[in-house]
C-alpha cells in the first residue's frame, strides 16, 4: 500500500505565545516546536497500516526548510521516506493554500491512503484533511477512533458529540485521526540511527496566494480579577451567594 502520513510542525502546547510588533504575526523568538499532537497519531496509524498490509510510508509536511529535526523523528518512528514541501511563510499560510499544496503532492505520490491529525494544534481549523480530499475527489473520514482497511475500501469509526458513527469508504482516502485510535510509539536508538540514512527530499511547495488575511492578532483579554471566597466546605454558601446575586448564573 502507498501510505502517506501528513504532519505539521507547530509551537509546543506548553508555549507561551506572543504577538510580534505590528500586531499581525506571532513572535517566533523563543518558540519551540513539535509535531502536532494528533499528527503523531496519524504517523502511528500509517506505520501500523504498513505493518499490517505492507507497502511504504511517506512522511509529508508543508513547512520551513529548517523543520527537518521533527521530520527525522517521524522517520525514526517508522516512516520510510520524507517529502518536505518548503514554505518560508508557513506560519501565515491559510488552510486552502495548504490543502492545495498537499493535494498536488498526494496526487503525484499516488497515495492509497493519507493520514492526518484531526486538527493541528496551532490554527485549530480541522479543515485541511476534508479540503484535500474534496480537491482530489477522494473519500475522507474525520475524527477516526478505529479503522480497518482492505485493498480498495475501508471501515472507520468516527467519534461525534452524540456517539460513534461507522463509516464505509472507498480508497484512496484521507483519514483524520482522533485520540483513541492508537497509542503512538516512542523512537528507539536503532530507529534514530536508521532515520539518518532515510531519504528526505525537499521541494518548493506549489502555493497559491492566501485568501485569508490577518487584520490583527491580539492576546486574549485578561479575565477580571477573581477572589478566593474561603476555605473548605464552609465557603460553599459564600459561593452560592456570589453565583446567584453577583454573577447571576444560578
Amino acid at each position, binding site marked *: 500500500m502507498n501510505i502517506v502520513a501528513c504532519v505539521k510542525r507547530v509551537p509546543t502546547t506548553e508555549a507561551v505565545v506572543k504577538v510580534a510588533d505590528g500586531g499581525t504575526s506571532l513572535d517566533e523568538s523563543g518558540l519551540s516546536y513539535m509535531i502536532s499532537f494528533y499528527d503523531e497519531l496519524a504517523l502511528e496509524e500509517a506505520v501500523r497500516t504498513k505493518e499490517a498490509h505492507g507497502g511504504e510510508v511517506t512522511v509529508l509536511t508543508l513547512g520551513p526548510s529548517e523543520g527537518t529535526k521533527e521530520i527525522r523523528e517521524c522517520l525514526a518512528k517508522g516512516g520510510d521516506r520524507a517529502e518536505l514541501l518548503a514554505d518560508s511563510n508557513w506560519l501565515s499560510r491559510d488552510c486552502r493554500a495548504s490543502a492545495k499544496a498537499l493535494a498536488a503532492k498526494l496526487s503525484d505520490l499516488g497515495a492509497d491512503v493519507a493520514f492526518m491529525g484531526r486538527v493541528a494544534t496551532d490554527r485549530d481549523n480541522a479543515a485541511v484533511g476534508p479540503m484535500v480530499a474534496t480537491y482530489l475527489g477522494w473519500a475522507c473520514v474525520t475524527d477516526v477512533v478505529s479503522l480497518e482497511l482492505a485493498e480498495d475500501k475501508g471501515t472507520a469509526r468516527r467519534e461525534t458529540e452524540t456517539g460513534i458513527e461507522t463509516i464505509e469508504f472507498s480508497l484512496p482516502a484521507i483519514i483524520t485521526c482522533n485520540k483513541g485510535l492508537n497509542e503512538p510509539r516512542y523512537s528507539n536508538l536503532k530507529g534514530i540511527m536508521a532515520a539518518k540514512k532515510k531519504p528526505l527530499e525537499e521541494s518548493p511547495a506549489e502555493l497559491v496566494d492566501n485568501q485569508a488575511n490577518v487584520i490583527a492578532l491580539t492576546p486574549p483579554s485578561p479575565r477580571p480579577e477573581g477572589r478566593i471566597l474561603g476555605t473548605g*466546605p464552609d465557603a460553599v454558601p459564600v459561593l452560592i451567594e456570589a453565583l446567584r446575586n453577583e454573577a447571576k448564573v444560578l
Partner: protein
Amino acid sequence: MKPILVFVELTAGAPRRASLEALGAARATGAETIAIFAGEGSNSTSCNGAQKAIALSGDDSSSDALASALAEAVKSNDCSGFMAAASSAGRDLAPRVAAHLDAVLFSDCIGITAADDQLNARRPWLAGKVIADLASNASVFCATTRLNVFTSSEETGPDVCETAAISAEPKARVVSVEAKASAQLDVQEAPVVISGGRGMGEPEQFSLLEGLAAAFGNATVGASRAVVDAGWRPHAEQVGQTGKTVSPQLYFAVGISGAIQHLAGMRTSGVIVAINKDAEAPIFKVADYGIVGDALEILPVLTEAIQEIKAEA
C-alpha cells in the same frame, strides 16, 4: 448584501440549538439568511432568523455527497457565504463545502462581522492563546461558529420551504450510529461544565462531579489532560489544547492546577469557579471565584446546595 446559506442540523425534526446559534450569527451580520437542512417535511418555521428554507431530499448518509449539494445551493442561490455550527457535523462538512467553492474556511469563529459588504471573522488560534481577526478575499465567505457563543435570532423562520436534491455519488457513507450510553451533553455544548483533575484523587471520585452535574441538570463532566492520559476519563471529555475548547456560562475546575494548555481551552467561559487544595495553583489566576480545600469534602456540600436551589425553582 447577498444572502448567507446556513446548514441546520436537525434532532427529531427540530433544529439543534448550535445551528440556531449559527443562523443567529449569520442574521446578526445584517444579511438575509437561507436555512438548509437534510430531510423533507421538517418544520422550517423553527429555523429562527431565516428568510427562506431549503430541504434536501435524498440519502444524507454521506458527508461528501451532502457537501456537494450544499455547495450547489450556495451557487444556485447566489450566496455571499456558507455557515454552519462548529459541531462534529459542521466541522466535517464546512471544509468540503469550502473546497467545492475554492474558498478559505474560518473554523470555530467567536465573532463574525460585516463591513463594506465584506464579512470578517474572529477566531482563536492555539486554542485561544491568541485571538485572530481575519478577512477573506474570496468571493464566498465560509465559516463555522463556536457553540455557546452566538445567540439565536428572535425572528421565526419562513413557512415556505423549497426543495433540492442530494445527488452526488457517495465516496464514504455512514452505515450505523451508536448513541452514547448516557444522554450526557458534550462539553462544547453544555451550558455548565464541571471538570475534574488529579486532585480528585482517584477515578471513582468522579462520581461526585457527576452528582453535581446531575444536580444542575444542564451540566456535563469534563476532564484535564492528566486524568485522560491516566485513563480515568475518555478523551471526549478532555478540555484544553489537545482536547476541546469550551465556553460554557459556568465552568468548574475541580482539583485542576491549571496548566497553560488547560487554561487555553476554558478561559473564554462566562464564570469560572476553581476548587483546589493549593492556594497558589495557577487556576486561581483565571477563576472568578475560588475555594481552597479538599474537593472531596466540598463537592457533597455544594451538590446539596445546588439541589436545594433547583428544588425551589
